[in-house]
């Protein structure tokens, strides 16, 4: 078993680290405080090829593997989880979904500009009354022959306002339950779409999160991905991979918090010696490091399985669950280690803690991950 990374993977990790530590760090606090969208960073990351990292070069992507994606997501998330969630949604939900399940025409028309980062995508599944219970879709896509008529509301949509391309999950045949759900590629500028105000969130405040309302929006049948009724399976399959991105994001939050805690403990003194020489602090850091290492190993295992073409749903659920729970604990301890300084924005760790909370909730709550894992183990449907 070889635990070493390739030269290319290390270069990608370093490129992401350099961008995060040189550029993202400069205005991350300001953007978080005032909920400013990171427009210039999204553009810069697109030019570097990060927005379509895993898409084949045939469709203008960078053709990188999932391990490289995990490494890049971790480095960016150490500094700015808002930027990394924008990247994650675009990469592992929207680009992945179209590349693996779309027709050639859909890939040529929609995937190319998304992979280049010229356009940003959004994934519209959650509704006001359907979060974890994704089968209870109330948004409808009525079959009108050669087009669908879309009506309903989606909420908590990352990139809701800045995306040009929406993947919308909606119910076409309610009598078939979840087998009557479809997924449609929708142009954000279609008549009948209105976007709600920017949500004032606890964390990841620099990414734009909105409700999106559809009123008699016409969507061509050519924009449906897969066969009639494929939408729920599409959502579940795509979220499996999306989980790896969010797991890597949680990993980055935890490892960023750990790095800052190590540095602070080596500098700050109490009772005549550095915090690092107090066993209570040193042991805390050891426990944080174990959780970070485990999170990383789970993320990389899930990524490796996906790259090998092997089933990875169980592994990605484990990675997402463990990394998110760890991130919440590690970032909270990081604030504790920093004491009063950990409570102010200037030292970054309070932001990491606020951001870690969301990783336990979105793209499948920790509870949902346990359902996925236990069903797999117990052979439950």
């Amino acid at each position, binding site marked *: 078993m070889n635990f070493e990374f390739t030269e290319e993977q290390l270069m990608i990790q370093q*490129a992401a680290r350099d961008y995060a530590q040189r550029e993202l760090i400069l205005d991350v606090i300001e953007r978080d405080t005032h909920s400013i969208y990171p427009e210039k960073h999204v553009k810069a990351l697109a030019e570097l090829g990060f927005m379509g990292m895993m898409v084949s070069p045939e469709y203008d992507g960078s053709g990188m593997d999932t391990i490289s994606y995990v490494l890049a997501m971790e480095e960016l998330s150490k500094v700015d989880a808002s930027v990394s969630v924008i990247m994650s949604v675009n990469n592992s939900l929207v680009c992945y979904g179209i590349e693996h399940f779309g027709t050639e025409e859909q890939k040529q028309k929609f995937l190319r500009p998304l992979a280049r980062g010229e356009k940003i995508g959004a994934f519209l599944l959650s509704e006001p009354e359907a979060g974890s219970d994704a089968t209870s879709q109330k948004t409808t896509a009525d079959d009108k022959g050669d087009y669908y008529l879309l009506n309903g509301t989606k909420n908590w949509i990352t990139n809701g306002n800045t995306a040009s391309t929406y993947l919308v999950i909606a119910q076409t045949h309610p009598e078939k339950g979840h087998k009557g759900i479809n997924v449609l590629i929708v142009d954000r500028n279609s008549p009948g779409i209105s976007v709600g105000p920017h949500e004032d969130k606890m964390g990841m405040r620099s990414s734009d999160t909105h409700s999106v309302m559809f009123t008699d929006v016409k969507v061509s049948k050519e924009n449906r991905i897969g066969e009639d009724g494929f939408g729920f399976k599409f959502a579940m399959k795509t979220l499996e991979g999306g989980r790896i991105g969010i797991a890597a994001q949680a990993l980055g939050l935890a490892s960023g918090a750990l790095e800052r805690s190590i540095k602070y403990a080596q500098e700050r003194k109490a009772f005549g010696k550095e915090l690092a020489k107090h066993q209570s602090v040193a042991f805390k850091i050891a426990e944080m490091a174990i959780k970070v290492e485990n999170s990383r190993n789970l993320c990389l295992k899930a990524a490796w399985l996906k790259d090998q073409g092997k089933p990875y749903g169980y592994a990605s659920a484990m990675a997402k669950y463990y990394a998110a729970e760890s991130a919440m604990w590690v970032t909270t301890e990081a604030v504790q280690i920093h004491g009063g300084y950990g409570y102010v924005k200037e030292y970054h760790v309070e932001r990491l803690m606020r951001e870690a909370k969301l990783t336990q909730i979105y793209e499948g709550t920790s509870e949902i991950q346990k359902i996925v894992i236990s069903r797999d183990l117990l052979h439950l449907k």
Partner: protein
Amino acid sequence: MNIYVCISNVPDTTTRIKYKAGNQEVDYTGVQWIINPWDELALTRAIELKEANPGAIGKIITITVGKADTEPTIRKALAIGADEAIRIDAVPLDAYSTASNIAEALKQEEPGIILCGVESSDFNSWSVGGMLSEIMELPSVSAVSSLNFENNKPIVTREIDGGKQQISVPVPCVLIVQKGIAIVPRIPSMRGIMTARTKPLKVNTGVSVDPLIKVSDYQAPPQKSVCKMIDPEHLEQLADLLHTEARVI
């Protein structure tokens, strides 16, 4: 016109330096290697100039003196945007042996501009660029903080005491560049990383050159001492310490 950028392979700047063999050698165990920061800025500027003047500049070719273990660093330079790379298979024993090897390799090339970082972050000799230009008998400009093209000719800004000089330089030439030559080092794109392995990396045989410098031993600088606080009511203590301990007055 081709631009040649001399790239030195140096330990990461956060490395904890250790010595071995009775402090006669540096212990490089576990060291992370990077492109010398000044050379990285030089390479960035070369790429910026090529993008801005595609007709005037042909290729950007990096040149490194080092063994095979320097190739990951060289490939990073290719990923950043160099077109080709040359590795001279030799150990860089000192600035003179490095400059001699680079000069020998450049005899087979047609350099327009040769860029050297002012110093390397490991040995800080500040010598390779100057020695290279003397060995090759080429014009050189030191302390270059900006490089531009006007009418397809290089114009440099050189930092001097009390001001700056603007100098028009004939090619071929050696430009010894310092901070300011580029503002932010270029980060390699995914495409650059993908194509780095396919770009030409030529290996030249090194020449045997006796170094001019022999290291007798290495010593770590003294640890920073504790800060001494002086009561502002007793400034004579400060004067006494500056005279007797610091010996600066």
